């Protein structure tokens, strides 16, 4: 049998003439979770450079926010990172409370922690299972999505909606946790570890998965800081920056939780950081639920607290304040604030410039996905196409957050 030396006979590698081809990835593509476009310049199978186009779902949130009263902007924040809507809602309410100078009691804080960590669990479940789908492992996705259905049922019990929750009001919640909701949360926290163990048995030490994700899409810590990375992507690169620890809000400093960090900043580290954060969130929810103090479930914030209906129908002041609020005359101080919360993807910031009227003068969302997605071409240069797909899905780029 004559052996063929392919490089010699077929001239597959020709270092002198590099013929670059252009590959268009998106905007509609099964592997991009959301619509954004990448035009890749490839040398055979290796990516040489990438040019990104975003804005295919630009819905002008910041312009809309200049026309809506503060409590109506909550519905806009739902649709930023729509896999973890309650987190965005509560972050916005915290920003308005910082603007107004409102303090919430411990019960509200603990209830908020429960809801925010459930949202974080929900987002990390999608992200990790979709990393599996993009590497060909569909089973994990189907198992974890069943748990997300349970989280949707909890949201429905709390606020009535599954996905775009519009949960809570400025100053707390509009209804207390019902016994059914608490029971569902407890059942979920009991049942989730078993499913997560099954998922980890499938994926975490799986030879194929590790080969596909280790050293793929790596970014060093100082490049990540230069780009403005936050969240699991930054923690995978080795920097332990978590807004819940640096600027504690909503009584997070009452709780003890680990902030996991990785070493190389590659896809496997991002997967493992999110997986560990899932376990930490389960602990946080269980602790908060076990130690939930008594108290009111909302604060009397003068411009946002809707009085109970019995008082509106019978007394004068509640009627007037109800009328004023619904008709939209709100008094807020004239100042500007910046409030950051730890979203599922990183530091979600709200920069509000208030001029005393019912709508903000300027509202800017500091969207973590928008900022760290800029680094994507740098992370995939020299990699193959399948590595680029996995890097993109491990960064958890959500189109609503990119474009706002």
């Amino acid at each position: 049998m004559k052996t063929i030396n392919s490089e010699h006979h077929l001239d597959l590698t020709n270092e002198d003439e590099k013929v670059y081809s252009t590959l268009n990835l998106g905007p509609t593509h099964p592997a991009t979770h959301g619509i954004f476009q990448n035009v890749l310049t490839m040398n055979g199978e290796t990516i040489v450079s990438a040019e990104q186009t975003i804005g295919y779902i630009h819905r002008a949130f910041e312009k809309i926010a200049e026309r809506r009263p503060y409590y109506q902007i909550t519905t806009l924040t739902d649709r930023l990172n729509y896999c973890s809507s309650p987190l965005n809602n509560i972050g916005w309410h915290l920003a308005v409370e910082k603007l107004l100078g409102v303090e919430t009691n411990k019960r509200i804080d603990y209830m908020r922690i429960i809801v925010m960590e459930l949202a974080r669990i929900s987002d990390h479940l999608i992200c990790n299972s979709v990393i599996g789908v993009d590497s060909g492992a569909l089973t994990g996705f189907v198992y974890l999505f069943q748990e997300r259905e349970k989280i949707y049922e909890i949201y429905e019990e709390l606020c009535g909606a599954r996905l775009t929750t519009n949960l809570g009001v400025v100053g707390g919640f509009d209804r207390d946790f019902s016994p059914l909701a608490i029971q569902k949360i407890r059942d979920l926290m009991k049942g989730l570890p078993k499913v997560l163990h099954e998922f980890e048995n499938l994926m975490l030490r799986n030879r194929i998965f590790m080969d596909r994700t280790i050293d793929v899409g790596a970014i060093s810590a100082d490049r990540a800081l230069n780009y403005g990375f936050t969240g699991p992507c930054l923690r995978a690169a080795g920097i332990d920056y978590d807004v819940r620890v640096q600027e504690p809000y909503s009584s997070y400093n009452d709780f003890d939780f680990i902030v996991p960090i990785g070493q190389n900043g590659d896809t496997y580290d991002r997967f493992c950081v999110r997986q560990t954060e899932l376990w930490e969130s389960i602990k946080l929810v269980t602790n908060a639920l076990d130690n939930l103090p008594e108290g009111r479930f909302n604060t009397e914030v003068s411009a946002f607290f809707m009085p109970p209906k019995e008082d509106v129908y019978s007394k004068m002041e509640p009627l007037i304040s109800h009328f004023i609020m619904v008709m939209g005359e709100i008094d807020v101080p004239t100042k500007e604030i910046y409030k950051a919360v730890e979203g599922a993807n990183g530091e979600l910031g709200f920069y509000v410039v208030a001029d005393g009227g019912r709508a903000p003068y300027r509202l800017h969302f500091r969207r973590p996905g928008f900022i760290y997605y800029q680094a994507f071409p740098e992370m995939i240069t020299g990699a193959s196409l399948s590595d680029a797909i996995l890097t993109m899905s491990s960064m958890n780029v959500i189109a609503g957050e990119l474009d706002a």
Partner: protein
Amino acid sequence: MSEKDKYTVVEAPEGYSAPGFFATTLDKAVGLARKNSLWPLPFATSCCGIEFMATMGAHYDLGRFGAERLSFSPRQADLLMVMGTIAKKMAPVLQQVYEQMAEPRWVIAVGACAASGGVFDTYSVLQGIDKVVPVDVYVPGCPPRPEQIIDGFMKIQELVGNEPLRRRYSPEYKQMLESYGIKIDR
């Protein structure tokens, strides 16, 4: 016998049957085959796409209606499911994807944003995809519950099952496509 009661099959269309044969019209038979094996193209852009993922999941299972095989290639898809907001930047892309689909093709607009622009009456959002492609079924909701998406899908199945075979060749259909500016390559 009792074994037949354990499972349900699709209802047969109207026709004349006798031992050994079943006679019906061609369009009913073709409609029956088509409606129970629609291959959707999930054009998921935003939040409604996540509800679609939940609909495809094990809990709500769109696969039992025959839509198990999602086709991301327009050439092999029957049903274009537009889920999510379509911005003006995306509208030509949507029209191009629709043009690449082979006849017969149906379009379902899932969600308020696809149906009419939704909450987003802004300078950058297309106020309804029926400005660029002809739509068969609109599913309202923000986002619609998976049951609503399935309801919309079943209405599409009704349309598919009752469609006359020569509809796509009629001059009215060609005129409608021309009014959207969609190229017909016949």
